[in-house]
């Protein structure tokens, strides 16, 4: 019953986010600030993780190709498919649920604890619009980060495959180009956009409606990470079934 009430509160929160907008002059600067905080500051970890995940996928595929009849090109093909379809959009989103999500929950939760949200409300500011809307807009740029993740992941696979002596550069590129389905890129970006909305709003919900003190801010961050991850995993299944099934 509590879960149902939370879903209802979340829906009401989303409606409030889009009501009574903040002045565009102020909103513009808030959006740029959030793009910096949520997207640019995450690029380092996204690039780092993507490179090594791509490399590991290539090595694992190479090590499992024991049948000499299977061409080595498959390493490039498998790396591309794994990175584009799952690792970049889903795996990186789970990482972002931890990094960006906990930042969102703790920053909004701290504002709640220190009465800064009450101060906004007393002034007549729509605090949900002021705090959450810029995060949603900033996260619209998340697909760009995922595009970088895809590129770096495949590059990591190429580095590990070629310099690890598993295949030649030509083999990798041949595999990379074989049986390419452009819709897979669209599928990945549709997923990414929906995950971006989830990453911006579920942590905001947990931060905004939290009660208590500093300890509860920490608990809310953990809870928000768990729920954001759960929702991403479930949506991943539904979207894959809908778009590829």
């Amino acid at each position, binding site marked *: 019953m509590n879960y149902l009430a939370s879903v209802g509160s979340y829906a009401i929160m989303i409606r409030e986010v889009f009501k009574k907008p*903040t*002045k565009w*002059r*102020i909103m513009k600067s808030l959006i740029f600030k959030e793009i910096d905080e949520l997207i640019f500051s995450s690029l380092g970890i996204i690039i780092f993780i993507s490179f090594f995940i791509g490399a590991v996928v290539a090595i694992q595929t190479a090590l499992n190709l024991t049948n000499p009849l299977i061409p080595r090109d498959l390493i490039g093909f498998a790396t591309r498919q794994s990175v584009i379809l799952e690792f970049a959009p889903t795996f990186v989103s789970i990482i972002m649920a931890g990094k960006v999500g906990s930042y969102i929950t703790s920053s909004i939760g*701290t*504002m709640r604890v*220190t*009465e*800064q949200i*009450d*101060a906004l*409300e*007393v*002034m*007549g*500011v729509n605090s949900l619009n002021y705090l959450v809307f810029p995060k949603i807009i900033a996260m619209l740029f998340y697909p760009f980060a995922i595009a970088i993740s895809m590129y770096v992941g495949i590059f990591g696979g190429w580095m590990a495959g070629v310099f690890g002596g598993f295949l030649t550069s030509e083999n990798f590129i041949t595999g990379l180009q074989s049986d390419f389905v452009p819709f897979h890129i669209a599928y990945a970006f549709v997923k990414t956009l929906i995950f971006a909305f989830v990453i911006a709003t579920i942590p905001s919900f947990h931060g905004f409606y939290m009660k208590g003190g500093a300890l509860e801010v920490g608990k809310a961050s953990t809870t928000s990470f768990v729920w954001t991850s759960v929702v991403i995993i479930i949506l991943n299944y539904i979207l894959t079934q809908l778009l590829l099934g």
Partner: protein
Amino acid sequence: MIEVRDIHKSFGNAHILKGITTTFEKGKTNLVIGQSGSGKTVFLKCLLGLFVPEEGGIAYDGKLYSEHTDDEKRDLRQEMGMVFQGSALFDSMTVEGNVMFPLEMFTKQSKSEMKHRVDAVLKRVNLIDAHHKFPSEISGGMQKRVAIARAIVMNPKYLFCDEPNSGLDPKTAILIDDLIKEITEEYNITTVINTHDMNSVMQIGEKIIFLKDGLLEWEGTKNEIFKTDNEAVTNFVYSSDLFKKVRQMYIQEQN
């Protein structure tokens, strides 16, 4: 002027405010006192419009809050200034940014006009050379001054303060009390202060209301509080030996 008309407020089964009726006049510092759990904070949040009473109503300059349209409620909010217990300054903004915030949100003033106004209110609260500091870089007393400056920057009609001198040393607490009183008179605003601090009661309490278990137990001026024989009030206000002696001296002087 704020008229509170028989307001009731409950949370679940807990009946917090059980029918409070009082009036807060313009240009006066009105103090709300009472023990923890007496309903002071809920009462203040009702005055601010953050909680809506189930029964009764609150009239601002003669018009009930419930009779205001949504736009009028928003305009009314902009006529209210609030000083929170923990100052509630925005961490990510400088002192100047915090004070300028309401102007940026609700006025069409140019940057130079806003800066001029911010300089004036910061000077009024005796804060100079702190414009570019962040709240974490200034003392608790300075944070309270910034909060007061932010509360008055829009020339409010009503000023609400929740424990404005909690956590401050006695000297700074007196300075903050005096500042609030001066601003109330100077701007001719209706000020309501929630406090536990008996120094404030003696120093600036032009009208004092005492809440007990969600009811208005007593109301009067700071001079009347010396003479009252209401047991709940005397037990609360004169719980320390120092205040008991002050009261005795006052009564002796009067006799």
